[in-house]
């Protein structure tokens, strides 16, 4: 193969490779855009009653981190003003205003994408000093209690502390006086604070989290747990049962680092509820939401910015070159004939409306009717252009008849006949007739079958949603298709059917 060709092909392959790698590594695109994802619909609804003064309600919202992504949010704020704040990793919604005498209902809705944890985007927490409100004595006390576990593995340390929640301190038991003093302190400051001090004492970074259990249902109470970093994993410890959650238990953190989940100032929270619903949202939506939130140049130049009715067109258009590639393969690698070069692609596009079976059926029907008509017209000796016009009229008449027939039967597939490429169909009838006359019935039927086969294959490719999505997200893949086309264009080897054709050349027998 010649050097310029190789260079061109390399160039055509490098562009998409570079762009896709960039998107995956730096813009967080998925490796396979069509991988199935679990999505959840979270909705929160709260009823509040106001006082004389301005009422302020703050609620922690889900946030995006390594394990979850918030793709779409919707706020109901009634007459109140709404503000979104960020505090550390947290996302906090603030509703404020004068509620008046009546009640006010506020709401929040989000679509969450829960994905398997990606460690690359998660920065492990570091061990921080004791909070200021923990006195030296308490620190020493905690140190005494956990002294025996300091040499254990991080995971074992966590489990020892978890057991202590249930009152199991293991052997040898710590000093009774220490235990008494500890339970008194715990009584005053709460279990969560006590556990955090113990974890700090054994050198495990931990933080208090308030959130929800990711299961379908409605709940009015949030869940508390402590997230512990054991050096490799994030573990979740329930302070009430003293159990470490299984890895498979999905938790949705909302508020962390001691931030309250809900707080109301100058008002009364009558009730609040969260509901979670597992949802199947289309892949298209997920990408759309993600790309719309990004400000990167590549994302702003995405096809997702087109109005949706044009997006629909491009989903298909981007795959048409693959259909053309199929034709290159069939004609230049296999050696199978088709009517016209791109006729099968146009047919495949039309099959999207009629469906494959009806499409092929209608195609065969037209070729047959057209052939008979063309044959009888031959005796009339019409000139070329008028003759083709008559055939075109015949095709339209058949369209009408089929559509009416379909309407009687209530078959949309038949009514969609009008979207078949009628000009191409007319030319095909003429070509088919000439081929039958000049090259014989066998050649004519072979070409018709070849055309139908490529149309069917192309239709299946255009129909493949995962492929549509892949090309829509990564339109640069078109360059790779072009590379394959260039390579095929320089394929000077034999066609598959030539093995058959030339088998009688000397030396074969």
């Amino acid at each position, binding site marked *: 193969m010649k050097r310029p060709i190789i260079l061109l092909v390399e160039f055509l392959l490098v562009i998409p490779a570079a762009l896709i790698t960039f998107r995956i590594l730096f813009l967080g695109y998925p490796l396979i855009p069509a991988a199935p994802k679990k999505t959840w619909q979270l909705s929160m609804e709260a009823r509040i009653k106001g006082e004389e003064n301005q009422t302020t309600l703050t609620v922690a919202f889900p946030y995006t981190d390594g394990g979850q992504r918030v793709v779409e949010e919707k706020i109901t704020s009634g007459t109140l003003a709404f503000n979104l704040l960020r505090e550390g990793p947290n996302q906090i919604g603030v509703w404020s205003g004068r509620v008046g005498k009546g009640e006010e209902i506020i709401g929040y809705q989000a679509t969450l994408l829960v994905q398997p944890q990606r460690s690359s985007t998660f920065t492990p927490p570091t061990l921080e000093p004791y909070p200021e409100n923990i006195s030296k004595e308490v620190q020493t006390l905690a140190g005494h209690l956990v002294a025996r576990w300091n040499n254990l593995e991080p995971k074992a340390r966590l489990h020892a502390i978890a057991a202590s929640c249930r009152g199991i301190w293991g052997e040898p038991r710590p000093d009774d006086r220490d235990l008494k003093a500890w339970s008194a302190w715990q009584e005053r400051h709460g279990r969560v604070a006590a556990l955090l001090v113990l974890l700090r004492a054994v050198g495990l970074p931990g933080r208090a989290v308030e959130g929800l259990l990711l299961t379908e249902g409605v709940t009015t109470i949030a869940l508390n747990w402590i997230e512990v970093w054991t050096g490799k994993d994030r573990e979740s410890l329930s302070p009430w049962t003293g159990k470490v959650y299984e890895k498979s238990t999905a938790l949705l953190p909302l508020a962390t680092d001691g931030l309250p989940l809900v707080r109301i100032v100058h008002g009364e929270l009558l009730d609040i509820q969260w509901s979670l619903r597992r949802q199947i949202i289309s892949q298209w939506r997920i990408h759309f939401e993600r790309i719309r939130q990004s400000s990167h140049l590549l994302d702003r130049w995405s096809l997702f910015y087109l109005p949706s009715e044009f997006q629909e067109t491009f989903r298909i258009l981007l795959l048409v070159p693959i259909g053309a590639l199929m034709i290159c393969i069939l004609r230049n690698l296999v050696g199978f004939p088709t009517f016209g070069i791109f006729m099968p692609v146009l047919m495949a596009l039309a099959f999207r409306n009629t469906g494959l079976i009806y499409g092929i059926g209608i195609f065969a029907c037209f070729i047959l009717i057209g052939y008979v008509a063309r044959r009888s017209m031959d005796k009339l000796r019409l*000139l070329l252009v008028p003759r083709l016009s008559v055939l075109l009229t015949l095709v339209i008449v058949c369209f009408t008849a089929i559509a009416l027939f379909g309407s009687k039967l209530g078959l949309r597939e038949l009514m969609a006949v009008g979207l078949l490429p009628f000009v191409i169909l007319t030319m095909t009838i003429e070509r088919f007739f000439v081929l039958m006359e*000049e090259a014989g019935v066998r050649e004519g039927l072979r070409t018709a079958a070849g055309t139908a086969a490529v149309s069917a294959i192309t239709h299946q490719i255009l129909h493949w949603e995962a492929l549509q999505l892949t090309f829509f997200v990564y339109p640069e893949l078109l360059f790779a298709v072009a590379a394959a086309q260039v390579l095929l264009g320089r*394929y*000077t*080897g*034999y066609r598959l059917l*030539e*093995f058959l054709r030339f088998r009688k*050349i000397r030396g074969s027998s």
Partner: protein
Amino acid sequence: MIFKSSEWLKKAGVLGMNRRNAEYIMRCNPRSSFPLVDDKVITKRLAVEFQIPTPSLYHVIEYHKDISGFERVLGEQRDFVVKPARGSGGSGILLITNRTAEGFVKQSGNIISRADLAYHISSILSGIYSLEDLEDRALIEALIYPDQVFAAVTYQGVPDIRIIVYRGVPLMGMVRLPTRASDGKANLHRGAIGAGIDVSKGLTLTAVHGSEVVTHHPDTGNPVNGIQVPHWTKMLLMAARGFDMTGLGYIGVDMVIDKEQGPVLLEMNARPGLAIQLANRIGLWQRLERIDHAPSDIFATPVSRVTWAMETFADSYS
């Protein structure tokens, strides 16, 4: 299996369609020269310029309004051929042997009415037989009375001889013999048979019929091999000069042998088919390669090219 077949065809030196297109037609045939061979009126003019005999041209019909007047132009000429200037594969060609009151006598003996012939010409003008569906011209030229050398292996029609010429060197030939199935047309696609010709001696070999190798004519039953083609060296020379005429590096030159005139040039083809390999049961590629490796002085004149080809390719027919 595929790999083995491919290796085998390569070893036999068979030229495939992809290689023919990419390596020979696209590389050797400049697009600008295609009209010289695609339009028979231009080819004829060129041939006259280079003093290569062709059937004499009586008339060219270009517009529909001229159709009715063509018989007057013919004068006393009773026999003639109607063909599209840009036709391919012999389609649209009508051989008329005589004129009567009812109409025209075709070579098959059937009569075609004046209206039918006018319709045929008008079809030619509207481009039905033309290569790219373009409007076309109709040629009226002298009818060839073929030499009787192939009479025993011809069913009606006129047998023609195709010689493939690469860089001016004739490398393979075949004679196309009409059959009943081909309706007297010397066109392999329509069922005519093609007999290979030993380039060095001008002797016919076995023939291809469809994709099968045959030794006898399907209609007359006579053996096709061992016929000495008359004027063979002269025909090789005419073909070799086709390159000088057109500048096309890879062509098929089609000729017929007239009873009195000897070989005359019918047309040239810038995209000659591959079936000639089956007629000769020899691959074109191996010969094309040998020409590319030939010493450069053999390309000097048509005579030197023909002499080299006749000597070099003699070894293939042992």
